[in-house]
C-alpha cells in the first residue's frame, strides 16, 4: 500500500507551548488513522498543522509525494482541493448568513469548478449526505446538529478530496445521531476511496472506525498500532489506563472492571516534565524515567510504543 500522507518529526510551538513535539506518522491510501488523547494533548493542533492552517515549526509534511512544509498559501491552493476538513462544532463551522446551497458551493467557486455545473454538483452532494436539494435555499439554523454535520461533510466533499481530516466530527452530536454520521463516513470512504485522519476522544468510536490508532500525550505520540492490536494488547502504561477508563455500556462487565487509576491530570505543555513526560502520572514509573530520552520503538511487528519498559 502506498502512503498518501507522511508526517515526519512535526513540531508546532506556540511560543514556549510545545503543542506538537516531534510527531511522525503516515497514513496509507484508503485507511483511517485514529488520533486519540485527552484535551490538550495536541491532537487537534496536529490535524490543523498537517493541513497547514498552522505553519509548522519543524519537520516535514509530505502529501502524495509533494512536500507541503514550505509551500506558500498560493502554492497550497491547488493541493487544498485534495485535503479537506470536517470540524467538531456544526454550529460554529457554518456561516449563519449563507444558505446551505451557497455554503456547499463556496469551495466550487474557490477552486474554479465550471460555472454551469455548480448547481448540479451542489444538488448531488446534498443527496450524497442524505439531504434533499429543496433544502439548498435554507439557512443553517433551520437544521438540527446532525443535519448540520451532514452539510459540513457535503462542503468537504465538494472538491473531491482524497484525504479528510475529521476533527471530533461526532462529539457534539447526540448518541442516536452519532451512529448515523459514522455509518455515512464509512459508506463515503468505501464509495469514494477516501482516506481519513479521525481525531477524537471517544475511544470506542475510534476503535470502531479506525484501521490504525495513534495515542498522543503532551504533544507526542506514545503508541501506534492497528486498531485491533492496540485495543487488545496495549503496551504503553498511558494507553493501558486510558482504555481501562472507557465506560462500558454493560452493567455486569462494568462491575467487573477496575480502571487503572492515574494520579492527577495532564501537566501543562508549557512546562512539561523532564524525560518521559508521562512519568509524573505513570503507575509503573521508575526513578530513571525522569531522565529518559523516549522514542517510539517497534516492540512487535507494526506496533510502536514509546515506553522502554513496556
Amino acid at each position, binding site marked *: 500500500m502506498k502512503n498518501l500522507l507522511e508526517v515526519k518529526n512535526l513540531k508546532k510551538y506556540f511560543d514556549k507551548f510545545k503543542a506538537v513535539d516531534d510527531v511522525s506518522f503516515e497514513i496509507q491510501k484508503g485507511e483511517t488513522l485514529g488520533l486519540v488523547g485527552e484535551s490538550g494533548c495536541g491532537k487537534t493542533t496536529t490535524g490543523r498543522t498537517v493541513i497547514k492552517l498552522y505553519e509548522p515549526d519543524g519537520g516535514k509534511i509530505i502529501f502524495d509525494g509533494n512536500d507541503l512544509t514550505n509551500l506558500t498559501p498560493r502554492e497550497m491552493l491547488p493541493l487544498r482541493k485534495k485535503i479537506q476538513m470536517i470540524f467538531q462544532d456544526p454550529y460554529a463551522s457554518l456561516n449563519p448568513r449563507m444558505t446551505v446551497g451557497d455554503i456547499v458551493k463556496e469551495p466550487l467557486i474557490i477552486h474554479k469548478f465550471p460555472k454551469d455545473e455548480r448547481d448540479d454538483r451542489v444538488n448531488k452532494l446534498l443527496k450524497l449526505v442524505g439531504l434533499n436539494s429543496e433544502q439548498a435555499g435554507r439557512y443553517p439554523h433551520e437544521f*438540527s446538529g446532525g443535519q448540520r454535520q451532514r452539510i459540513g461533510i457535503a462542503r468537504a466533499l465538494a472538491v473531491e478530496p482524497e484525504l479528510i481530516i475529521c476533527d471530533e466530527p461526532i462529539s457534539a452530536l*447526540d448518541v442516536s445521531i452519532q*451512529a448515523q454520521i*459514522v455509518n455515512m463516513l464509512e459508506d463515503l470512504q468505501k464509495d469514494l476511496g477516501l482516506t481519513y485522519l479521525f481525531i477524537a476522544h471517544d475511544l*470506542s468510536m475510534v476503535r470502531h472506525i479506525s484501521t490504525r490508532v495513534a495515542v498522543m500525550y503532551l504533544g507526542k505520540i506514545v503508541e501506534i498500532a492497528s486498531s485491533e492490536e492496540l485495543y487488545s494488547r496495549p503496551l504503553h502504561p498511558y494507553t493501558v489506563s486510558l482504555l481501562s477508563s472507557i465506560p462500558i*455500556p*454493560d452493567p455486569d462487565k462494568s462491575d467487573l472492571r477496575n480502571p487503572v487509576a492515574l494520579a492527577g*491530570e495532564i501537566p501543562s505543555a508549557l512546562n512539561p516534565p523532564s524525560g518521559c513526560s508521562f512519568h509524573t502520572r505513570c503507575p509503573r514509573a521508575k526513578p530513571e524515567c525522569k531522565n529518559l530520552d523516549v522514542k517510539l520503538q517497534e516492540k512487535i511487528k507494526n506496533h510502536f510504543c514509546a515506553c522502554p519498559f513496556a
Partner: protein
Amino acid sequence: MSFYTSAGEVQAVGGVSFDVKKGEILGIVGESGSGKSATMLSIMGLQGSNGKIKSGEIIFEDQDIKTLDIKKIRGKKISMIFQDPMTSLNPVLSIGYQLQESLRKHKWHGDIKARAIEMLEKVGIVPAEKRIKQYSHEFSGGQRQRIMIAMAMINNPDLLIADEPTTALDVTVQAQILKLMKDLQRGSNMSVILITHDLGVIAGAADRILVMYGGKIMEQGTRREIFYSTAHPYTKGLLKSVPNPDEPKKRLIPIEGQPPDLLNPPKGCPYVARCPQAMKVCLEHAPEVSKLSESHFYSCWKKDE
C-alpha cells in the same frame, strides 16, 4: 413544565412521574431536548422566569415542595452540581470563601473553616489549608469538579443532583470523579440523581435508570432490567447505536430521523416518527404505562408477547 420563548411555548417536560429512594443513585439518560435537565431545574425551583411548572407536584421527604421555603432547602437538603466546572465557580472569590458561603447561609453549627477544610480533604484537594485560599483559575478542570462536589456536599444534603458532572472531563479524570461520587454517596446514605447522555457512565454508576425522550419517560427500571430486559423501542435503539465492545468493527445501527420539535410536539408518542415499530395508534394517542415488574415500567403501545 414549559418554557416560554420568542418562538412560542416549548413543552420541555410532559407528565413525568418518578421517585428517588433514600440512598440510591437514580440515573437519568436522554439526549439533548429530552427534558432531563428541565425536570431537575423544576425540582430545584431554578426553571427561570420564562419557565413554568403548569401542573404536577414534587414531594420531598413527604412534603409538597411548594409548601416549603425552597431557599432553605436548596444548598442544604438538596444540592446540585453542573456540567461545566469552569463556569460554576466564581473567579473573583477564593475557593474557601465559596465553600463557607453555603455553611454561613444555612447556619452551620460549628467551625465553618474547619468544615471547609475537611470537605476539601475528602475530595482529595490537598494540602487543604493552603489550597482553600486559592482561586478557581489555579485548579484544573477535574479539581474544579472535585471542589464543586465538596461544595454541594458540605451541608450533608439528602439529595444530590448531578447534571452531566463528567461530560466536560477527560476519560481518566471522569473515572476518578465517578469513583469519588460513589464512595462519598456510600459513606453518607445520600440519594443521587445522575443525569447523563453516556450509556457507559450510567451502566457503571446507577442503581435504577429512567430513559427520557421528548420530555417524557419512555422506560424505567433497575440497571439490569434496562440493559438486559430492554422493553422500549427507543431504549433498544439507543443501546444498539453505540459500538459493541465484543464486536467493535460491526456496522452500527443508528436510530434514523431527527429528534422531535418541542415547539410543535407530536400528539401521540414523542418517538413515533423514528420508531421502527410505530403503529397508527401511536400517532394519535400517548401510550399507557405498562408494568413488567415491581421496578420495571415502559410507555409503549407495542406489547411484547
